[in-house]
């Protein structure tokens, strides 16, 4: 099959490849660029495990062709942390037990990051609607919502996330890890 040359910026780096026109963006990211943090959970755009940012927009990378991303700015979960410093949403998902098996987590974080850019201080109902395109089978969403709430209202000012202890209904909040950067 003939191939087509594509070039794009992925997490700030220039990347190029010769791809079949039918190659899905998610397969370019995973199989060619070896950025395997973006996952595949369905074939029908329902689960959102493959969510990335394309030119600043949240996009399900299983529903885009790689050639459609030619020239685009792509951001994946691997581009969220600043070296050792976690993105506030990554920190919040850890603090609030917002993940279990971790498979939906990258897509969930990417969707939440985009969504908070659109709506920096959402209500719980708005958060739930904002992640309705991302399925999680483990957490029941309670702690995902809390994770996003931990960050809500902080990103717009460019501030880091506040340190909020993991809250559980009856459990006490403890961390065996070094305290999160404030």
């Amino acid at each position, binding site marked *: 099959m003939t191939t087509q040359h594509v070039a794009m910026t992925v997490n700030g780096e220039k990347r190029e490849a010769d791809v079949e026109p039918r190659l899905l963006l998610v397969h370019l990211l995973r199989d060619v660029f070896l950025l395997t943090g973006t996952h595949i959970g369905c*074939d*029908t755009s329902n689960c959102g495990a493959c969510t990335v940012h394309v030119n600043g927009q949240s996009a399900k990378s299983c529903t885009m062709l790689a050639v459609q991303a030619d020239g685009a700015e792509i951001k994946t979960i691997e581009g969220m942390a600043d070296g050792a410093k976690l993105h506030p949403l990554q920190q919040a*998902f850890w603090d609030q037990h917002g993940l279990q098996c971790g*498979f939906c987590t990258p897509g969930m974080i990417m969707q939440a990051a985009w969504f908070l850019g659109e709506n920096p201080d959402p209500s719980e109902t708005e958060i739930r609607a904002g992640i309705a395109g991302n399925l*999680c*089978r483990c957490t*029941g969403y309670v702690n995902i919502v809390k994770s996003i709430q931990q960050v809500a209202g902080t990103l717009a000012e460019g501030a880091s996330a506040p340190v909020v202890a993991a809250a559980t209904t*009856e459990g006490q909040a403890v961390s*065996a890890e070094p305290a999160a950067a404030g």
Partner: protein
Amino acid sequence: MTTETPLQTTPEVGGMGHSVKRKEDPRFIRGQGKYIDDLVLPGMLWLDIVRSPYAHAKIKGIDASEALKVPGVAAVITGADLEKAGLHWMPTLAGDRQMVLPTDTVMYQAQEVAAVVATSRYAAADGVAAVLVDYEPLEVIVDPFKALEEGAMVLRPDRAADKQTNRIWHWESGDKAKADAALAAADVRIEEDIYIPRIHVASIETCGCVADWDATNGHLDLHMTSQAPHAIRTVLALVSGLPEHQIRVKTHDIGGGFGGKVPVYPGYVLAVVASLTTGKPVKWIEDRSENLQADSFARDYHIHAELAATKEGKITGLKVRTIADHGYTDAAADPSKFPAGLFNVITGSYDFQNCFVEVDGVYTNKPPGGVAYRCSFRVTEAVHAIERMVDILAHDIGKDPAQLRMENFIQPEQFPYKTPTGWSYDSGNYPAALQKAMDIIDYAGLRKEQAEKLAKGELMGIGISSFTEIVGAGPSHDFDILGIKMFDSCEIRVHPTGKVIARLGVQSQGQGHETTFAQIIAEELGFPVADIKIEEGDTDTAPYGLGTYASRSTPVAGAATAIAARKIKEKARHIAAHLLECSADDLEWTNGKWSVKGSPDRFKTIQEIAFAAYTNHPAGMEAGLEAVDYYDPPNLTFPFGSYICVVDIDKGTGEVHVRRFVAIDDCGNIINPMIVDGQIHGGLTMGLAPALYEQITYDEQGNNLAGTFMDYLLPTAVETPAWEVGKTTTPSPHHPIGAKGVGESATVGAPPAIANAVVDALWHLGVRNIDIPITPQKVWAILHEKGIS
């Protein structure tokens, strides 16, 4: 007795009862988890599968010639190829057999028919599209009752001459005469048909593997999505004839399991065959449609229940007849002695001694059923039936459902409680859990509101479920899978500098084992959680165990961990006595150190002792500080809880809105409260799902009508309510740390609470039961018929 979990360690150590943040999370939140499809080996090929469009058909021919011309296609494997090696059938975990690839007949839609191996994912798919299969469609049986009719076509003629029937087995439990007598003598007799539909676990990661055959060394690495890697290795050795020490099964991070990653699927075997054939690593990854159409399913129980009671509402007996649709083969993952799993725990939380249960397993033209959906071997079916029946009884005699439950509960002082079907419940305090739920939700206030709303014509319902779980399989005298006893294991090694590695026979799929098992060791030995590494899922290094399903990890492997740690603690005592030049009998253990009784300033920390174990151990003692334990539980554990659900029903659309849901769980002593709450949140959502949304249905031709996420509706954050959770704590008396297991309780307990709430809202219209999932269509049809909508 209801107690609070006492904290014995500091937050820095992080033993039991601390909400320690998960040690596994840093890699997941950075996208650095390693799941099966992330694994790429040099020279790796991809395998894709040709699947049947028919639910029942003769295969008249397979033409692979065009497929072999597709660029990149390396091989096409058919049933005829496998037959030459005797690999076209394989055993199921339930003692039946299952086709790897068919040689003459396909038995369900989406069954594997041939495999294509190619140099890329896309080339393999091109190859699949080019394989021509000539089918002759046959009569299809999708209804298990029709399968049992006289003269019905025999779906499995390959079975023995005395088994030429679609009835796979008949299983009974309890005392029929006593149950009949109780029903005959009853003031009140409730009779109901309850169907628990076929559903699918649909973990967000599908199944897959990379098989890597090393011909030079005669060694097979099988990287795979398995909840039970050790058992898989043994089965693989027995089926393939490869020596077991030359097979390594390796799991990586697993993106959810819920029971769906227990069985051996044909795809795994095909990847192994393809690697053996090509001499290269071969990857097989399902897509979602394959996963939803061909992997093992759960439930599909047609239950007919009869409940006997006095006119005051005291339950006196229960009789249950069930038809179990297993699809074309019995590939259930139940322990050998329990073809219907633990379904006979159906007497639930209630004190009565007359019960009889019978179940018939039946073949149909569907994929294999009978695998769990986040539950312990059919306990969900049992709980749904008894909780629905009790609720109908309460409504029938006009007694409040909470009051009726309180009057029928097994009381705290009755434990250990022997049930009429032979289980011995270890501990419980059922009234306390229900009372706590009622207090939190303001039960009396809700009943008042409901009456006011009803007067205004609004539909509001309150549903209760007071369930008893049965987990932690299991004691070796009763529990095995393919003959392998259901023990589990832990090996702990303490290094000289006081750092610890522990390996277990179970396998996390998101439960947080890397954190919680470290907390058990921290609790027992005083090492900080940060100094303890937990490893699972490499059969070359981990001790043998039966794996993670049926909430057995904490009850069995958690116990093994505590016992192994105690063995280390005992050896440490003798090393400390040597260092302190005293008798071991004069030492006492407090907070990670052995100290001389009465002289608390004379002590050795566990870290000092660990160093001495390698540098200054007593004469006559082996060096080192490590232990292993294979734990054979004396009994199962019986977590329980009471859930109360409030629903509002939209009269115009029939939609059920869960307004509040209070879940009080008792899983014994708690290792990590944060993780327990997370398990319950997730379990509740997987209880909501089959109650209101999920069902795998088939048309009369056996076509799967829910084969994508467009049709099989997993709840999103929008449908899922903000769960309200709480606890009571009743330790298990026989478990070393008093824990019971919690991963599945909520999935078991939630559906009847929701169904009971909906029926409660509609009872005044003459509604006695609605089978789950309670979709808007079902409710709207009822409201329309009654002239409400």
